[in-house]
């Protein structure tokens, strides 16, 4: 990642302005060797998703989008460092449903929510 991209991600002001496509959530992408990294800022948080082989930048983008929704859903009062650590157990369980030991498990946000709360998934019933 370049210095500019790091600054761009951390600077919430730039995120609010958005880029020329009008996209306020500014996910960035880079490749390091054979590995792809998709990353974005969310409040005080920086989320990095990295993968290789079949997990290229497009699938990682889907995973990142789901991860952002998970964190937003859990940290309803705003994504701050304290809030994230306070909800650490919830985020851990939800992300455990999202990715299992390096494999993409479930991508639908509501399904992840159901299983994280040990409920049946109504969509598949």
């Amino acid at each position: 990642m370049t210095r500019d991209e790091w600054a761009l991600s951390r600077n919430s002001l730039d995120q609010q302005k958005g880029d020329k496509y009008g996209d306020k959530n500014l996910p960035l992408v880079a490749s390091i060797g054979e590995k792809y990294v998709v990353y974005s800022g969310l409040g005080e948080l920086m989320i990095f998703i990295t993968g290789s082989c079949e997990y290229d930048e497009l699938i990682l983008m889907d995973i990142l989008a789901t991860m952002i929704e998970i964190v937003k859903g859990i940290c309803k009062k705003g994504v701050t460092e304290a809030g994230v650590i306070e909800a650490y157990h919830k985020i851990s369980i939800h992300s455990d449903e999202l990715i299992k030991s390096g494999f993409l498990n479930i991508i639908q946000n509501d399904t992840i929510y159901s299983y994280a709360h040990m409920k049946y998934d109504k969509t598949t019933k």
Partner: protein
Amino acid sequence: MNKNRIGEKKDDDDSYIPFQGLEKGIVLQEKRLFSETPVNPRKCSTLITKLLYLLSQGEKFTKQEATDVFFAVSKVFQSKDIPLRRMMFLMLKELSTLADDVIIIIASLTKDMSGNVPIYKANAIRVLCRITDSSLLPQVERYFKQAIVDKDPHVASAALISGNHLMKSSPELVKRWVSEVQETVNSKSTMVQYHGLALLHQIKQHDRLGVSKLVTSLVRGSVKSPYAMCLLIRLAAEVMEESEDKIFFEFLESCLRNRSEMVVYEAARAICSLKNVSTKDIAQAVSVLQMFLSSSKATLRFAAVRTLNKVAVTFPLSVTTCNLDMESLITDSNRSIATLAITTLLKTGNESSVDRLMKQITSFMGDISDEFKIVVVDAIRVLTIKFPQKHRSLMTFLSNILREEGGYEYKKAIVDSILSIVVQIPESKEAGLGHLCEFIEDCEFTFLATKILHLLGQEGPNTKQPSKYIRYIYNRTSLENAFVRSSAVSALATFGAKLENLRPSIIVLLRRCLYDNDDEVRDRASFYLDVLEKRDAPLVHRLISNVNIDIPLVNLEQALKDYLRNPSKKAFDITDVSTEVAEAPVVKKETTTGAKKGPASTTAAAATQFATFGKLFKSSQPVELTESETEYVVSCVKHIFNDRIVFQYTVTNTLKEQQLEKVMVKMVPQSADFKVEGAISAPVLPFDVAGTTYVSVKYVPGGHPSGTFACTLKFIVKEVDTSTGDVDDSGFDDDYQLEEIEVTTSDYMKKTMVSSFQEEWDRLGEDNEVVETFNLSTMKTIPDAVKEISTYLGMQAVDRSDQVEPKKTKHVLLLAGKFAGDVPVLAMARMKLQTGVVMQLLVRSEDQ
């Protein structure tokens, strides 16, 4: 003091961070909470959260600590609180790799797996996968198999993903689940379909026919999941490497019209990566990628420009249609995308667009980091060589960025690019040297300065106004460190040697260097002064202006080290150093089985006998005549003499119950040009001891024939009592068939270096030339052909002609060697890639 604050009221203070100052020791003391009856769900959940947090922060748990916590947490199986059970499963998974005796919870896990609650089942399967090893798996296999075909997709996915992990430790066992896994590919759940296909591919990956059948059955449209489709596209592309069935290509084309962008991109990427794709086939894929270039999603733009960058190497004309869209990406906020766009434009731009492109790049370069800049510099180098007419503007650009701030690797890349352009485009030499002279006026990198000074010394005297470079070089003798000053002295001396009219002035400058602080600088100055003042033209030519060392540096270094180690009264003579390019030492090489060496008597006898054969010309690399796991492991080295070949066989007996005696190899030549003269057998060969046997074969001097030999290992076998080590007195004759051994032209050739191939080539002349054309139909690429030809002829590639870019369609390979009898031979192979590789081979040598 316990500083954690979860569950307490938050401070209004903004700097409040939960778990700040959390200490492992204090947290571990709380594990008694898990043993309470009944367990307090809230407190236990909080405790598990703290433990997980500590683990994620890199806190190290000892084995004992991890085991204690593991057992403590496992007591939560008795709790019916659902959130707590969920946390428990998570914690058990994290600790499973750290703790001992983890299999103790199998009973609890199997109870959950046999139960009616699918949520518990799925999580229990995941934990089971982590704690199971290959010895335990057969006992719990049925749970996985049942779970794979479970109606609940959560359970099925858990089992399938577990199967993927278990393939690493127990592949044979997981392969037995193939029929269950096959069913999941038709599941209604998109994720189960995806996981099932992934596991099925893992199971069948070594069975090409199986994979082909799997893909053929699925491309007809039963796959709905976009992730499974992406995987299927990759599998189809793999199968297409070997199959020419059109159904796979039609499938890829149909995927270009899929609803999911991911699938569309994957299909476009797969089509672009196919080996024998035509321009027409690739056009549709490129148009899809062109659409993605203007997408609002950064990942799509990145993916598209990344793929187009690769396509531009092989199909630059196909990508030119996207140039306008890519130009708009130069200002993209994502610098990775911008750099890829620039480099793609540099590959596909035409001569008229170069100037416009360079203006855009100039402003862009300041915004990116060094690693991206290096990529751009390399692309500019390729562009300059592609459009030699534009060398002036491109060289100016390179020199401008050379003056800007940057690290060593970046500056080195620019200097190397300029040097490469100067070598490949002679018209650019003066401009290039001028730019480099300005650079060394303020260069902080010693290596780069010395490299440029050396180049100035070589090329400067050959320019129209050589004297203008002397100022730059002389400045370096006073303003720089000792390494650079030494190089500057050498460069000055080269000017003095090559330009007689400037020699008096150079001598004056060199005299000033005699007062330098550094020994090396003074030594060089006095040496060069001495040579130049002698006015002996051949001496000056030999020692300064045309120093030809036709000796590999490795050999020279070794010879100098040996001389210093064992000094003699005789002066060091460079002509005594071997010119042969060093290969792996053969005579002292250990056997492949690592067996102990046998008695030296055989070797000594051989040495005595073969001393009469004259000077050894060459020894080949060892050739294996058996597999490494056979009863008798045999390898052979061929020693080439003037009119004989000595085959040295290294034989190892791998059977404990046998001892071999009078071991020899019977060789039967298939060609009448060879005559087997004699052999030396290995007297005794116990178990795991390598012995050596020799066979001498004669041929007509100067004939140098090729041919194969049928080889049979003959010996007397004596039984050995493995308990006592006693050997039977009586034995029986036996033999063992070996692979044939071949003697080819390359065996009579050894690799040598030449300092100037062109000079030697011109000296030999067309009168000593033989030309023939070959069609190498089995070679698919130029690099493969280069490698094969060098190996087949046994000659050394010179002037870096073995360095070939992968996609090149034309190349000239230059080879040098010495044939038996120390006859120098040069070869030039002109290659062109068509259906195979067409090669015109020119060979020059004084000996017909």
